């Protein structure tokens, strides 16, 4: 029977497949949202109280009010740019980056390349 950790992990993985932000999108975000995303990129995941603490540690000019922080988190989670696990004070936020797509070159090119590389022992 799956444990709590497995269940949460599965929930995160399912949500990660539903979208995510690209590094280029980050540049287009409004400053308040970008501030949170940059923080989350470094911390990987944060609880709501820890996010509030991190905001309080920022220079005064960069801080968001609790109301603005809550509003920004709502926007980011609605877009699946952040994933929220849990509710209210116990919520954990995790950044969700969109996967870089693979090459659109025809599949035959990759299989042909793989066949050629297999012939080199160091590449197998």
């Amino acid at each position, binding site marked *: 029977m799956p444990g709590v950790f497995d269940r949460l992990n599965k929930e995160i993985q399912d949500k*990660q497949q539903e979208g*995510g932000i*690209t*590094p*280029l999108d*980050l*540049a*287009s975000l409004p*400053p308040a949202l*970008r*501030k949170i*995303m*940059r*923080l989350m*990129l*470094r*911390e*990987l995941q944060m609880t709501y109280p820890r996010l509030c603490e*991190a905001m309080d540690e920022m220079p005064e000019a960069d801080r968001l009010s609790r109301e603005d922080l809550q509003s920004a988190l709502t926007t980011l989670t609605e877009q699946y740019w952040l994933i929220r696990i849990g509710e209210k004070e116990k919520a954990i936020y995790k*950044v*969700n*980056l*969109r*996967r*870089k*797509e*693979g*090459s659109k*070159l025809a599949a035959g090119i*990759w299989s042909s*390349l*793989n066949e050629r*590389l*297999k012939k*080199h022992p*160091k*590449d*197998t």
Partner: protein
Amino acid sequence: MNKGKIVSIHSFRGGTGKSNTTANLAAQAAMAGKRVGVVDTDIQSPGIHVLFGLDENKMGKTMNDFLHDKATIREIGLPIGDNTDTTEGRAKLKGKNLWLFPSSIRGREISQILKEGIDFNKLNEGLQTTITEFDLDYLFIDTHPGLNEETLLSIATSDILIIILRPDSQDLQGTSVTVDIARSLDVPNLLLMVNKALPKYDHAELKKDIEEQFSAPVAGILPLSFDMAENASSDLFSLRYPDHEWSKGLRSVAQAVLALG
């Protein structure tokens, strides 16, 4: 925020000396007693391992293994201080706290990444985990030239971005694009480094012109050097030839980075 600083080294065009600069800056930081990591995010054309004297046989696990859940970051970090060779410059790193996180140079593993793409959540987790797992003061990221998505991610997560350019019209135009992007991503510290400057240029004048053009500090102007070319990535130049003009310029960039830290 994590304790360690992320320093991305970038250039808009290839051939600017990015990997050489990254390896030498990391070496200088390690020589200054810092705990330093170097990640090769140039997954499609990796090369920085060569500057640390490594080849495919010595490399072990790579970032490609991490991205495919075949290795942990702890398993990938290669302690350069324990793996130095007898080359004069690199030998000075013996016992220093410097780890390399290389990308694979196996053709099949590179083609697998190109074919399947990259899980950026995993890549970012890897970058941040190197700092916490190895208790790093600085993580230097060697990026692919130009603006691809891996590069943008490394810029977005950086504390310090160093953009390398040559005094060349194409480089100047490309650098202006990169500077704009870096500012859009709120990178806290932006430094420029001019490499391969012809000796006939007045370096003070060049520095002033470029700083005015980009409204960003130039941390060093490094000369075009036949000695550097002759070194051909066979050693860490700034450690081997510390009194050379190139090495002096490089150290001024390293000092600018450490001063931010």
